[in-house]
């Protein structure tokens, strides 16, 4: 009798453990972990600092969803982050790492601000705004071009050059804003002259939201389309898959890599241009800061998929907005929200991806 029950029990036990295993592997469970784990760890951290965990999370929630303005701010940051993450994704698809989205975006922004207040200032809206965006792309590509030139001709590591060029761009822009580009009527603020009125985006719902987000989303889908559905994309995927095979197939690997890198710089520059045309209207020190770095993280979070980067950009954008109001409400520094962002990133990278078979 005893043996019988044991024998009868065994298969059902085995069945249950299999079902349980597949439950732990299932996507909803993984998604749940990606939410619960960082929130718990960050909560413990808050408690150890003597802050009220509940109050802090309430602040985070309401700063994001509590007002139209909050949502608008999230959308604005997501706009930049989508574009800067694409600037990291494109080179990653041909085996390069562009960590210079920050500098490329800033250079695009300052370039746009300058042409918008000088040579483009008399253009009418339908011509002027596209020209402004193209100008931003040009300056972003130019800055990326220096990095890729160092890689191609001088054999310097492209990740390091682009990271270091972020600092160079920060200081060059500071030099310009405190020097030749400073608005003479700007009460001595380190900022450029405002760009012409007709070159600005309209803002909606009383927030700073503008059409930039649609440009960014369209760009994400466009990049996905080019990579997956075109002949050029096939070349890119070949290089990304095996550079030797690409070379033996007669593909000029370095040339394609250089072009893709320039395109990435252009996309980061576009983020800068949208920032000037949309929200800022002029370049000032610190505008769009950390958006390039965060875009790089947004790309890593989704394993370099341009369409999924839209989601990770919104997530990081939301947490970024929450950080600002957390500083005001709870007295924690805004940077502490970055702990939460990194925790989310790490959990996603640990359990989020497909299990290797």
């Amino acid at each position, binding site marked *: 009798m005893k043996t019988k029950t044991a024998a009868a029990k065994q298969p059902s036990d085995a069945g249950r453990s299999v079902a349980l295993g597949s439950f732990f592997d299932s996507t909803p469970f993984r998604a749940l972990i990606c939410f619960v784990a960082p929130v718990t760890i960050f909560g413990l951290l808050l408690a150890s600092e003597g802050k009220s965990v509940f109050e802090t999370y309430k602040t985070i929630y309401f700063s994001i969803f509590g007002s139209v303005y909050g949502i608008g701010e999230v959308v604005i940051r997501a706009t930049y982050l989508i574009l800067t993450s694409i600037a990291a994704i494109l080179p990653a698809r041909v085996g390069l790492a562009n960590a210079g989205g920050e500098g490329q975006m800033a250079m695009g922004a300052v370039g746009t601000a300058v042409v918008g207040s000088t040579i483009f200032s008399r253009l009418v809206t339908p011509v002027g705004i596209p020209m402004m965006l193209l100008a931003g792309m040009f300056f972003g590509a130019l800055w990326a071009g220096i990095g890729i030139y160092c890689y191609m001709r001088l054999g310097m590591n492209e990740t390091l050059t682009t990271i270091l060029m972020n600092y160079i761009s920060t200081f060059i822009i500071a030099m310009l804003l405190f020097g030749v580009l400073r608005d003479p009527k700007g009460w001595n603020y380190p900022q450029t002259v405002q760009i012409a009125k007709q070159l600005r985006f309209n803002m909606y719902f009383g927030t700073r939201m503008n059409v930039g987000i649609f440009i960014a989303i369209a760009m994400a889908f466009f990049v996905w389309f080019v990579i997956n*559905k075109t*002949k050029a994309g*096939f070349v890119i995927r*070949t290089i990304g898959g095996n550079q*030797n095979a690409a070379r033996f*197939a*007669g593909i*000029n690997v370095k040339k394609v890599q250089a072009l893709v890198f320039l395109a990435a710089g252009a996309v980061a520059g576009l983020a800068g241009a949208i920032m000037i045309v949309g929200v800022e209207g002029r370049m000032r020190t610190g505008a769009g800061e950390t958006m390039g770095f965060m875009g790089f993280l947004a790309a890593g979070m989704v394993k370099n998929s341009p369409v999924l980067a839209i989601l990770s950009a919104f997530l990081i954008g939301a947490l970024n907005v929450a950080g600002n109001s957390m500083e005001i409400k709870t007295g924690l520094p805004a940077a502490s929200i970055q702990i939460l962002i990194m925790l989310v990133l790490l959990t996603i990278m640990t359990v989020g991806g497909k299990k290797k078979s």
Partner: protein
Amino acid sequence: MDEVNITKASIKHRIEMGMRMVTEDPLRDNVVPGFSVLQNMALVGIPPERRRGDIDWEAMQKQFESFDSIKTLGVPASNRITRDLSGGNVQRVAFARAVISNPKLLIASYPSRGLDVATVNVVYNTLLRLKAGGTAVLLISEDLNELYAISDRIVVLAANTSFGPFDPKELDMKELGKIMLKGQEMENEDKNSSSEAAV
């Protein structure tokens, strides 16, 4: 080649002139692991057909099914992902890809590597058929039986020197082996010693 010096020609130019190559390690040099067999075939194999800016994969599939050498070599199904294939199957893909375009010059480095006896025979027959069709075949191998089975002329590369060309009908394997070893004695290093044969 065609009386043109190609020492400095780019790989793309060489391919356009009708050169094809099967390297000794296709997984490292020739195929993209994440691609399907068909996608890998599109890299210097099946001539790509375009449709609206993209490669017309349906037309490529039809072409894939139309080639005899793909069938006789037993190339795996076109939708299989190359990463999941065995070494022999990858070799089939790389070799079939090189021969379907009827090249003018085929450089085949260890083309029978990892293949079963039957497929090795198909490979040899394919090489001989190409030769009859006017293709110059440069076979690089260390397998003397293989070289003797299908070569017209054999050149030994050893100790940074080339010996030959020899006619396999006049020189037997032992003699050839001695020449290979002689090179080794001169340099005391056998890594460079490989035999080449022009069919």
